[in-house]
Structure formats: C-alpha cells, structure tokens
C-alpha cells in the first residue's frame, strides 16, 4: 500500500474503506536468521535497514509490549547533529542526512521539520566553547551559526535576556535541526520493515538467552523459544536487565526522564530552544502544545514516572527563561526510562558472546540517532564490522580509556 496525494483523494471518494493495517501481526516462527529484541525506534530501524539495505531475510523484531510503547513514543522529538567530539559528530550528522531523506525513503509522513535549534549561552567562556562546537559541526558538514544577542532577540524576543543569574548573551544555532513526529517514525520503519518481509512480533517478551559454548542459539520468550543465528538487542532503558540474562554487566544506569506538554497555543516558538544552564528546553508541536523538559531525575529508576522536585526544577527553568510560560496550562506529563551510560555516549557493538550484539546507552538523546543507529546496527549485524561513523561506540572503549565524554563529567551517569 503506497501513500500518495492521489491515494488520499481516491480513498475519500470510496469512503475510506480501502485502507489496510500498516503491518501484519504474525505469530513467531520457530527460527530466524536475525532476531532484534525491542520494537522501539532503534529496533525497527535496524530491522528495516537489515532487510532493505543489506538484503537479509528471515528477520523478526520481538517487542514485549506494542510497537513504539517505549521511549520512541515518549521523547520530546528533537533531532539535531550539534555535537563536539570526533567520535560523535559524524555519526549524528549521518543520522541527520538520513532524516532529511526519511519520508521519501519510507513513503511515510514522519513530520520531519527542520525548524532549527538554538543553544543559549550566558558567559564569554560559554560563547568560546560554543564557537568551538560550531567549528566542529561545520567540519562535519552539519552547519552552525553563532548568534549574537541582538540577532537572537530579533528571532525570539520573548526570552528573558536580562535574567540576573543567566543573562542571555547569544546562542549557537543549527538551522537543519528540528523535530519529527516520534511515533510516526516508529510506524514508518515498522511498515517499511514489514513490507520487506520482517516479522514484527508484539506482546513477546524476551525472558532469557539460550547460550552454548560461548555462542547464542536463540531466546526464550513469553511466546516460547525462538532459535536464531544472530540476536541484536535494542531495548533502550532495559539494556542492563536484558543483558544481565546473558550474564553481562554494563556501563549503564537506568534513570527516569520526564517531559511535559501544555494546552495548544498560537504559534510562538519558532524552533527548539535549549537553556542548559537552567535545565530547560522547549519547542512547540504542530498542534500548538509547548513541549518541554529538563534534566533526568537523577537516581536509578525503572518507574516510567518521575517525582515532583524535577517538575519544580523544570518549571522554574521555564519561568526564568520565558516568564510568559507561566500563563500556559500543563496538559500532560510523563516519564521514560533511559539507559544512562558512563560517558554519556551509546554502545553499538558485538559482545563476548558470539552472535549476540548490543545497541544501547542512548541516554536522553537517542531519538535523533534512530536512523543512523538502525543503519549502523544493521551494518554490524550483516557485515560483522562497525559502520564507519560508529567505530567510537565499541564497548571496549571503557577499558581502553577512550571514552566519548561530551560533557566531561566522568563515570557519573546523572551528570551527563
């Protein structure tokens, strides 16, 4: 089923009776060549590229709930490639390029909107650091612009430029960054994978691995045993729990991150604005809701809900940055469990168990990585080698001291 303007028109005349479900709902087969554990953005994208780009078959995605029930449907939808470090920036820029062609690639409206992101700075030292980051972005072809105070004020006049503690001196802008419809991304990849023969198996929780002489043979699930040659795990906040079933300890802590959305308002906020100093960032959805968030709650949690101190912290940040937000009524708030790694960067790698692969440690920022993460993981599963943009994400970097620590915070996950 192909989507097009003509199709919408034709269906309208037929009373919309011709639409079909976007994917099949198959039962698991006894064995596959490739099993992807986790039907979030990363798992679905992996299955899609594995089938479509790398031409593999006999692939299944095992999801314990429904497709997109995890963080892919809980995030604040920001996509960007504004990193500093050489291990990160080419990967995120690769992702950004995939975002730019995603809707054509998938024939699905993921509402990718390059409305720009602005990171605010408040001191001369921060301006210098942002200038350096902007240079790194330009070297990777991502584009960057350093905005002065007046230029910024013309774009976003409603900010509190004269806050006593954090007066706004300017911002670093990436015009190509923006937002995408988060669950649309999951659905698009799911539909694409399904149409290339991937079995998307829902309500199927992986409960154990069957290992034999250092090699994976298959997985135990709530729907029975499934054999496989290769198993790729992409379960976001559950990485530690799932890999523990294979006897692995990971450089990861699970934390809860909250997000908030207000009632719909007239268009006010042109792009994404981040106020790192005040633990606050915001954008406006196409429906008009102000979508915002801040820091993680800061302690190990699998609760998928946060606590009030961080709610206070986030709204205080909002009030400090743009006092007008005080008039907006909060509609919903929620939390998601994110896998915070020890250096704040992800892991896409094989494990010491033959045939078992891990994709995790995405912290609070893995949505933007969805296309590249899926592509790189599929590359690894299909060819056995890391994708050229993901070589820094090998797990042995911790033992070798080659951490990719964008924040410079050290092995303290709640500071990344």
């Amino acid at each position: 089923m192909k989507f097009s303007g003509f199709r919408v028109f034709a269906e309208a005349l037929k009373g919309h009776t011709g639409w079909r479900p976007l994917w099949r709902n198959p039962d698991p087969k006894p064995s596959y060549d490739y099993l992807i554990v986790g039907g979030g953005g990363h798992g679905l994208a992996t299955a899609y590229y594995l089938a479509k780009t790398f031409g593999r078959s006999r692939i299944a995605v095992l999801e314990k709930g429904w497709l997109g029930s995890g963080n892919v449907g809980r995030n604040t939808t920001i996509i960007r490639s504004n990193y500093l470090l050489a291990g990160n920036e080419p990967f995120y820029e690769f992702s950004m390029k995939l975002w730019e062609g995603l809707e054509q690639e998938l024939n699905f409206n993921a509402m990718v909107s390059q409305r720009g992101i602005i990171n605010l700075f408040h001191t001369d030292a921060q301006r210098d650091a942002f200038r350096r980051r902007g240079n790194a972005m330009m070297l990777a072809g991502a584009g960057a612009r350093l905005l002065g105070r007046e230029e910024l004020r013309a774009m976003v006049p409603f900010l509190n430029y004269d806050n006593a503690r954090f007066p706004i001196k300017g911002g670093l802008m990436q015009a190509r960054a923006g937002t995408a419809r988060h669950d649309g991304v999951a659905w698009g990849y799911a539909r694409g994978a399904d149409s290339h023969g991937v079995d998307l198996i829902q309500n199927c929780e992986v409960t154990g691995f069957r290992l034999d002489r250092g090699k994976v043979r298959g997985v135990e699930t709530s729907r029975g045993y499934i054999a496989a040659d290769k198993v790729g795990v992409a379960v976001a906040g559950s990485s530690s729990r799932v890999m523990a079933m294979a006897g692995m300890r990971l450089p990861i802590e699970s934390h809860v991150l909250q997000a908030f959305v207000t009632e719909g308002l007239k268009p006010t906020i042109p792009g994404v604005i981040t106020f790192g100093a005040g633990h606050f960032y915001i954008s406006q959805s196409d429906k008009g809701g102000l979508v915002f968030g801040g820091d993680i709650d800061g302690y190990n949690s699998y609760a998928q809900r946060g606590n009030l101190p961080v709610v206070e912290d986030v709204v205080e940040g909002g009030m400090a940055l743009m006092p007008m937000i005080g008039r907006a009524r909060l509609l919903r708030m929620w939390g998601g469990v994110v896998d915070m790694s020890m250096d704040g960067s992800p892991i896409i790698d094989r494990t010491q168990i033959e045939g078992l692969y891990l994709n995790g440690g995405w912290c609070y920022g893995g949505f933007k990585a969805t296309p590249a993460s899926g592509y790189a993981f599929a590359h690894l599963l299909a060819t056995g080698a890391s994708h050229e943009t993901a070589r820094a994400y090998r797990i042995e970097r911790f033992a070798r001291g080659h951490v990719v620590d964008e924040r410079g915070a050290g092995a303290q996950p709640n500071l990344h």
Partner: protein
Amino acid sequence: MLITHPLLGLRDAQEFTYLGDARLIDRPAPSAPDAEAAFCDYVFLRDNPAGVHRELWYHEHGDRSWLVVTRDTVTHEVLGAELARNVALARTRCSK
C-alpha cells in the same frame, strides 16, 4: 521520596544528592595483581537491577552524611537507610 535518615528521621530526598550503587564503597586494592581490570569494572560497570537497590546518597542540605539507602527502583519505595560510615567500618572489621 522521603529518606529515612538514621539520625534525623524522614527527610525529603531533595535535600540529598545521588552517587549511585553502594558497591562504590568497595574500592579495589590498588596493589593487587589484577588491579587494572578490577578498577575498570569498579569505575564503569554497574548491576542496575529493577527492584531492590543499595545506593549512596549524600545529605548535602542536611548533616552532610553519606547514607546507604535501600530503595526499590521500580516503585521508588525507600526500604531503609544506614550511615555509610557504619557500613564501611563493618566491612573493614569483617575483612580483618
């Protein structure tokens, strides 16, 4: 969350900062032959269970004590707290 401070009773978790897994108390011996590998595990690897977790909290807006708090990471229920110094002292006594 309210943390049951062993000396001060129920205290708002906002008064505390969080360090992580209480196993960070068990620093490996730097002179052991496998010290390099042991330190790598110590610094980077965590158990990260869903359920009961023993963890270090620092009473920053309080009496500046380190506590070992036992907490359920699924429900956020605080099950108990002890002074970390007592925990650490008990360990050294045991290992001697």
